């Protein structure tokens, strides 16, 4: 791989050698001392305290719902139709008028068109990564992939910075951890996502391992805990180790989650009124988004959700048309539901995908990967209501104005939840790494 223009070559993370993850293991949890070769690089351990550090503030947004459309949805068939482009560019789908003057969506998004006045559609998202895993990495971490460092996902950073509240895990994946980049990266896996482990759209949905096993009621569980205390006591007195303390702390968190009615109830989608379910649609997209709302309402900080499969190398029109109705209905319902509950201003909804698709329809009536420019959608959490940010040229090949980088998107999102993305987190070996490198808060995106 060439390193031309690669950010990590310049990154302090790259030039400061480190020790293993395992060595670092408990530092983030318990505190400790990382070895450092810092003299050379101006980071003696004293200087580490001078690593860029900012206290987390109260953000406008209290939570983020990240909806990811894996495979790379075509902007042309969703948020950025090109009705005046030649047929081989515009494709076969029509358009629909949105609430915004003169702005069109693809015909696949009639419901979202009606709530466009609550959203910011970014049509000028851009990065250079045309491979699925690399594009996905960008959109989950705010960094280009590095052979030397595993970056933490947005959710893990939020988990690290904001912590847990109301006995709930701070970062939840719906339904499962979607890809390797949604994890905790160089941070301890303690900050990794908690995944539902089951799809809320399934009739018999239950969160994995949250409910007590069959035949074990609360009383019995209490007895078991007492028993476990008794059994653990001997070892605890005998052995001292950070590893043991860390394991203990997760048992405590598990206990509080299991025993908190509110926490358990957050996952209980059955408690949702039928009418609400109908609004979202009793579909995969609908139930997942409804679950996202329940979770942020209960106190989860960051929910990461995936829906569909959008890698339409063949027959893009049919592919998009098949999956968008659920998505369109559910997302519009989510925005309206959040608004109705007074949560929209404090909940940022961020709909992304790993890249867009090629301007020209290929020989199989599909579109291929196109990271030069694509669309994402934002709403709530202090995002400006009712705007189209950036635009593409006549064939959706290049950004026309206001290209939005991954770093700027990430920095803006972090800013909204009260995190200064320039802050340095400490990676293995005492290496400070910015949460996002060289990003800026894009004021034009904000209300």
């Amino acid at each position, binding site marked *: 791989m060439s*390193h031309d*223009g*690669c950010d990590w*070559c*310049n990154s302090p993370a*790259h*030039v400061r*050698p480190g*020790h*293993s993850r*395992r*060595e670092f*293991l408990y530092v983030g949890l318990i505190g400790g001392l990382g*070895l*450092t*070769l810092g*003299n*050379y*690089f*101006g*980071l*003696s*351990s004293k200087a580490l305290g001078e690593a*860029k550090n900012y206290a987390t503030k109260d953000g406008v947004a209290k939570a983020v719902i990240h909806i990811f459309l894996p495979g790379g949805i075509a902007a042309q068939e969703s948020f950025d139709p090109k009705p005046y482009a030649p047929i081989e560019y515009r494709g076969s789908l029509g358009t629909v008028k949105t609430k915004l003057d003169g702005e069109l969506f693809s015909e696949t998004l009639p419901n979202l068109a009606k709530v466009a006045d609550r959203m910011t559609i970014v049509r000028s998202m851009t990065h250079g990564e045309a491979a699925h895993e690399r594009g996905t990495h960008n959109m989950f971490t705010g960094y280009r992939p590095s*052979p030397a460092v595993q970056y933490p996902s947005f959710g893990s950073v939020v988990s690290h910075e904001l912590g847990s509240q109301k006995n709930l895990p701070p970062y939840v994946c719906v339904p499962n951890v979607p890809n390797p980049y949604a994890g905790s990266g160089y941070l301890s*896996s*303690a900050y*990794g996502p*908690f*995944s539902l482990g089951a799809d809320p759209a399934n009739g018999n949905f239950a969160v*994995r*391992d949250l*409910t*007590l*096993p069959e035949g074990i009621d609360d009383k*019995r569980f209490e*007895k*078991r805990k007492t*028993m*476990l205390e*008794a*059994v*653990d*006591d*001997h*070892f*605890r007195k*005998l*052995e001292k*180790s950070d*590893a043991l303390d860390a*394991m*203990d*702390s*997760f*048992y405590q968190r598990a*206990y509080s*989650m*299991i025993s908190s009615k509110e926490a358990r109830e957050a996952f209980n989608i059955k408690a949702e009124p039928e009418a609400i379910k109908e609004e979202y649609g009793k579909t995969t997209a609908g139930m997942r988004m409804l679950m996202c709302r329940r979770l942020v309402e209960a106190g989860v900080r960051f929910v990461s959700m995936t829906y569909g499969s959008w890698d339409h190398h063949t027959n893009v029109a049919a592919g998009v048309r098949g999956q968008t109705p659920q998505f369109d209905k559910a997302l519009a319902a989510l925005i309206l539901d959040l608004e109705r509950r007074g949560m929209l201003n404090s909940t940022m909804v961020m709909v992304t995908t790993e890249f867009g698709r090629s301007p020209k329809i290929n020989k199989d009536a599909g579109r291929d990967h196109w990271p030069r420019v694509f669309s994402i959608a934002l709403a709530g959490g202090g995002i400006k209501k009712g705007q189209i940010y950036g635009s593409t040229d006549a064939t959706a090949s290049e950004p026309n104005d206001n290209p939005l980088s991954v770093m700027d998107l990430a920095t803006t999102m972090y800013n909204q939840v009260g995190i200064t993305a*320039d802050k340095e987190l400490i990676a293995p070996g005492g290496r400070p790494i910015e949460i996002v490198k060289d990003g800026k808060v894009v004021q034009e995106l904000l209300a």
Partner: protein
Amino acid sequence: MRDVDVMRVNKIIASVLALGLLVAFIFAWLGSPRRALAAGSGSPSTPTVPTVLKDLDRVSFKLDVMPVLMVAGCNSGACHGSARGQDGFHLSLFGFDPDGDYYRITREIPNRRINLAQPTESLLLQKAIGAVPHGGGARFKPDSPYYKTILAWIEQGAKEDPADIATPVSLDLEPKELHLKGPGGTQQMSAHAKYSDGTERDVTNLAVFMTSNDNSAGVSHEGLVTAKNRGEAFVMARFATFTVGSQTIVVPKDAPTYVWPNVPENNYIDKLVNAKLQKLQILPSGLCDDATFVRRVFIDVTGTLPTTKEFDDFVASTDPKKREKLVDELIARPEFVDLWVMKWAELLKIRSTDQVNEMSYKATLLYFDWLKDQFAKNVPINQVVKQLISSTGGTFKNPPTNYYQTENETLKVAENTAQAFCGIRMQCAQCHNHPFDRWTQNDYYGWASFFTQIGRKPAEDGRETIVFNAGGGEVNHPLTGKPVPAKFLGGAVADVKGKDRRAVLADWLTSPDNPYFARNIANICWAQFFGKGIVDPVDDVRISNPPSNPQLLDELTHRLIAYNFDLKKLVRDICLSRTYQLDSVSNASNADDSRSFSHASVRRIRAEVLLDCISEVTESKEKFRGLPLGARAVQIADGRTQNYFLRTFGRATRETVCSCEVKMEPNLSQALHLLNGQTVERKIQSGGVIKKLIAAKKTPDQIVDELYERCFSRKPTSQEKTKIDAMLADSAKDPQPVLTDLFWALLNSKEFIFTH
């Protein structure tokens, strides 16, 4: 043209703003006035006054100017050495491309960076002393030898060096070993370089000094080491492409008198470990008891727990050689093979893909079976690797060829081979000389040249690939644009003319004389039993990550070679050492020790073994893809096999060769899964152990003992008994729920999840 200029200026402004904070910070530190050697620091040694140049009459760009750029930090990654340079001025990172640097300084923008008419007005110097605004601040003073060197070079016409100029060939750092009392003890280091023309030079003032642990020993720019807290550090000097280091041991100056307790030494391992402990004035923990030993050695050697019978027999035995006998017996078990095959399957990335032309599922199984067969037959490890590296033929017919199917990118194959078998990470040197090791780009591409002629073609069965020697193909060095002759790591250029390059490499790599191979295997072997390598992580051997006990690693290496690469014999030595059999309970002097093996460490059991142990004690069976019901998780052939428990507990996915794939950190999902999840609850039910024990007319008391023995390899303490008895008394009619709860609690306890 104007637009370009404006863009360029904008770009510069943007990059200045963006990097400003970081750069300012680093430079503020680097630029702080260099402290004169503190008078009264208690240093017994007088620092040499290093001469940058004895003879300023003939200044060489490569020999004199380049080292100044390095020591002043000009070509570091955060400054002009970054991929795009800094503010329009780019230098090669750590000076890996001196010719390019010469061009950039003298010719890139003519008359800008140097001024031959008025040398002191040269921007290079003006910037360096901070006479004009410089993002990096003042690097050195006008009266410094650094300034004088560069000035003299410009005054002499900023000449290019003759092509045959001498090059540095080695670096020597004195003293080689430091014993300091802290805090406050000092020692001046001195660095000498040797050159290809036979000359020598004191380069103390041109070397960059670093420490691996400035909590124990700090080092100044001038190479003055100052002791701090008890512990070890590795003080390093870097000059040209060389990094060398000295082991530094710091003991408290007011420590109580240290008396070595004269503990028994079972074998050479104990001698070498104890020698280190004595240097550090650390006392080892005591010998662990039989119960602790039996559990530890079963898990580490076989990945299983002792049965209650095995436990009882061992504890009851009065044979003074019973530990030795047990080790011998365990090493001979097939489970020993399973465990090591799993570890090697990780090293070899045995994992299927759905990609056409990559490892098919069938090839994966064949590869794994071949590996297992090698270990089962106890084929010497070097012979196993030799077959892998030199393999040709079909991936079905000759499974070791799959080594070239798990990765087909030339550079990755080269990197993986170095990391897996030598423990060396070469990745850095792909783009620039390794900043903390000896590896240059020439080394990297010379190494890669061994793998450029691998041919691959589809076999009749679409799932099989034929690997062959294509006899042609090169990869070019990015600077010269030419291929680099195949060269052994840290060794000579190989004679590959008319030969299969991989066969040549295989001979070199697996030879007993190879400086890395046996050492790497010995270290990996050690790490299995101590949770930590002597070099750690095991696959990050570099000068700046030295072994914690080099003598020990040397000796283990020699033994492994003497044993003809028979892993079992080395494992036996390790397990029979007193060091391995130490207690995990620490004393005042060794509580903080995590590198010198003065006590056993408490380690979480790795994912596969933990699942197998749960299956074993609950007498329940697991089913994995491609394996019969009841097979153990360590026997999984394909890294892609899905299993929630294993994933949650951090097993390696075998997507890379990195040892970091195996994760031991705890998380919420693990806790929830053990508390509520399928694994524990279902297995307790499906195995029916409690029912069976009750049916066998055992008393609740006996069952409690039995469960403790199964899970913890010990009997319950009287305190535990009291508590459990109380709970049993509450439901005297039906003890089963309470006993089930006890079983559940044992499986959830840290004493079960951890080995100690």
